[in-house]
């Protein structure tokens, strides 16, 4: 449907905010997590793969953590079992942090954009 004179043409887009610097900073953080694709470049392919693998491990780690807390709250674990489970998860988190440092990744890097569904983590 061609636009008629009565139906005004699109104006130039305008951006309105009283907090420009704050939004620039936040949007930069969002942009830093994009694109969620593996860059097939010899220099960065290793980091891209590490990011993908570590994201999946982080996702599973969080699931395990939630499940452990649910069981702890459910009261079906003995104090020793809670302690053992907590120690195992603590070590897993420490190991993951170590791997992140090794590949130069930050917490915000470990995510996958699933499009309309949202983000994985």
């Amino acid at each position: 449907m061609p636009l008629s004179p009565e139906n005004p043409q699109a104006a130039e887009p305008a951006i309105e905010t009283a907090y420009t610097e704050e939004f620039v900073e936040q949007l930069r953080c969002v942009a830093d997590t994009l694109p969620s694709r593996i860059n097939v470049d010899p220099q960065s392919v290793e980091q891209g793969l590490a990011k993908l693998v570590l994201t999946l491990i982080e996702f599973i780690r969080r699931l395990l953590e939630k499940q452990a807390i649910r069981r702890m709250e459910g009261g079906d674990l003995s104090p020793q079992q809670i302690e053992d489970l907590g120690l195992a998860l603590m070590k897993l988190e420490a190991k993951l942090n170590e791997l992140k440092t090794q590949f130069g990744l930050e917490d915000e890097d470990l995510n996958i954009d699933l499009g309309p569904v949202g983000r994985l983590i």
Partner: protein
Amino acid sequence: MKFYLYCVTDADPNLKDDPGGLAEQIVEVINSKSLFVVASKFDGEAVPVTRENVLQHEAIVRKSFSNTTVLPFRFGSLVTESGLESYLKTREHALVERLAQVSGCVEMSVKIIWQNSAGIEDSEVTVPDLEEVGAGTAFLMFKRGELLGNYRLEQEARELEAWLADGLKDVVREEQITIEPTQRLVLSASYLVERARLTDYRRELGRLQAERTNLHFLSSGPWPPYTFANIDLEFGAHFGVS
């Protein structure tokens, strides 16, 4: 040689006097029955993601948008001539339907930054006494507090989402809202607004901003209906690319 795609329109966008497209190629309007595809030839397998290319893509889409209704393609969409023919043939009905849905509308965007009132800092996160419990138990208790804090943040973000949706429901045709409760940029919304209702939309948004002065708003637009075009996914499904 492939075609680089900018958008599908429901009428000739009349771009004859415009500057060239990506890679300094002439912008062509390819007609197929009731559809018009704005494209330019491209020699290569992938379009470099550069500031110039992105702005060029946006400029062509916006120019087309100023003359007609558009469904923008995702930046970087390349296809062969036969692939494009096949795509238009098989998707004609869906594209015409989608064009009708966005006809006469623009996309408006709202982003909100909040100062987390129920932030993790003041939630139930307490550091357990290590003399009473072991390190493993303390770790799980700490994580439990963190989860509770996140849950409360999510509740607040959902409430914010519902408040905004309710306040604008009479002036928008469609909406897509994303919330990120643990981030400061907590809400990003896109609205499909009829051009004729833009003034009403701006007035209502202004009223909502005045209602919650603790929230920091960024509003932008009018944009071509990128969020509501939804043809890149169909394109991807058709050609097996993304």
